[in-house]
């Protein structure tokens, strides 16, 4: 039996058996190298005029240009924030603030990340969740219908779902909203770096640790010409859209990781998609197990399934004991004791849920090992309840 989380398997990488890249991708080697070099050069305040400050400023501007280039946007549309969540809050609420004369309501898909849901609930005004289909996809016309009700300030639709991997029709949503004046916010945290950024948004957000950069770096994108107002207290930093002292080394490392990931994405994505097809088929073959999310139009690195009669916590713990780290949207594994709002909105089983997500260097042997353990762990838990 392999060792549990926290220690390296004999002869393996420290991340052997780690199948939770959608929660956080291990640091990319390119990011590690850049981070270590930048720690010694990017310490100074990039707002000052002296040489050390100019050096820090140069690194920050360089990071911004690289990220802009990788995402296909202008450098002045890129802001580094303190996290992906912070970027989501600023992007969504900033567009809402920019539309204060028209209304205060927020429309979003029912399967948005909790960062969007919490931000919408935090401000006064209605927040309307637009229903999704069984695959988790939101119909563009339903978003447009909800968004064109008087009093709506902003609409939010994610690029791809973080729990089930379904890619959302962002371009179609944007086309449906064109001419309505309602701006579109896109949470691209789950997909940035792995898939090209969708088009048609007014503001968007991404998170570096999801693509192999360091944690604590978010990316806020605000389209040139979009009406965006800071929803929070201001600051006198390099970038007026954010606050706090810039983490220059981390921003540069995030940019280096993104550049590497975008360069390798076709090759890595193809390999991951093939492994995921294997996981989908094997999971679907486990009795009374349903694989959820769109089978084709999806993120390349993750798959989600639910096993009937199985306690999610027992499943995660059982797999962990066999050396595999996975996430779960089941209520018993959440701090809130509420099932995943994503799974509930899709109308799929919320218990016995597992999300498997691959890192860039997850091997076929690891995946096969997981697939060998899965039916045994599921059968063991079911046997305990006599099913």
């Amino acid at each position: 039996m392999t060792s549990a989380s926290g220690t390296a398997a004999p002869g393996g990488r420290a991340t052997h058996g780690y199948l939770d890249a959608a929660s956080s991708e291990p640091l990319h080697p390119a990011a590690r190298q850049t981070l270590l070099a930048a720690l010694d050069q990017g310490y100074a305040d990039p707002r000052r005029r002296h040489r050390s400050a100019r050096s820090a400023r140069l690194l920050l501007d360089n990071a911004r240009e690289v990220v802009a280039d990788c995402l296909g946007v202008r450098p002045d549309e890129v802001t580094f924030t303190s996290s992906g969540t912070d970027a989501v809050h600023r992007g969504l609420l900033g567009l809402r603030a920019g539309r204060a004369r028209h209304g205060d309501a927020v429309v979003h898909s029912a399967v948005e990340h909790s960062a969007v849901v919490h931000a919408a609930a935090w401000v006064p005004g209605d927040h309307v969740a637009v229903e999704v289909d069984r695959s988790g996809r939101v119909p563009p016309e339903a978003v447009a219908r909800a968004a064109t009700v008087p009093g709506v300030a902003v609409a939010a639709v994610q690029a791809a779902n973080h729990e089930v991997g379904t890619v959302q029709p962002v371009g179609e949503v944007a086309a449906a909203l064109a001419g309505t004046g309602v701006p579109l916010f896109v949470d691209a945290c789950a997909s940035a770096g792995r898939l090209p950024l969708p088009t048609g948004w007014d503001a968007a957000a991404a998170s570096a640790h999801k693509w192999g950069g360091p944690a604590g770096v978010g990316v806020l994108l605000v389209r040139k010409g979009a009406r965006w107002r800071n929803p929070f207290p201001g600051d006198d930093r390099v970038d007026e859209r954010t606050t706090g002292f810039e983490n220059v080394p981390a921003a540069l490392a995030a940019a280096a990781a993104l550049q590497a990931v975008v360069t390798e994405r076709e090759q890595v994505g193809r390999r991951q998609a093939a492994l995921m097809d294997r996981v989908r088929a094997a999971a679907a073959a486990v009795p009374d197990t349903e694989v959820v999310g769109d089978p084709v139009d999806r993120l390349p690195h993750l798959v989600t399934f639910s096993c009937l009669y199985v306690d999610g916590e027992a499943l995660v713990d059982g797999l962990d004991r066999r050396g595999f780290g996975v996430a779960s949207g089941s209520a018993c594994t959440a701090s809130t004791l509420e099932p995943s709002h994503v799974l509930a909105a899709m109308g799929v089983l919320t218990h016995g849920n597992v999300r498997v997500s691959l890192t860039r260097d997850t091997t076929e042997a690891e995946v096969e090992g997981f697939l060998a353990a899965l039916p045994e762990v599921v059968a063991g838990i079911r046997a305990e309840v006599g099913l």
Partner: protein
Amino acid sequence: MSAADVALELDCRGMLCPLPVIHLGRRIGEVAVGEVLAVVATDVAARTDVPAWCRMRGQEYVGEDTALDGSPRYLVRRSS
């Protein structure tokens, strides 16, 4: 749906997921094909999981009403 139309009611109040669905799976065989089994459950996951169970097991989800004490009650018709 009136109480007379329910052939068997399972009291799953206070049980956390997946226990209500486990009870449903164990006891559906106790009602005849065409009869309705009711699951009274306070766990919010049952609202999603009972209909999902029906879909996965080829049974008919009739809908939700409330038990006499106001707890949510989920109705399942055995169809096979």
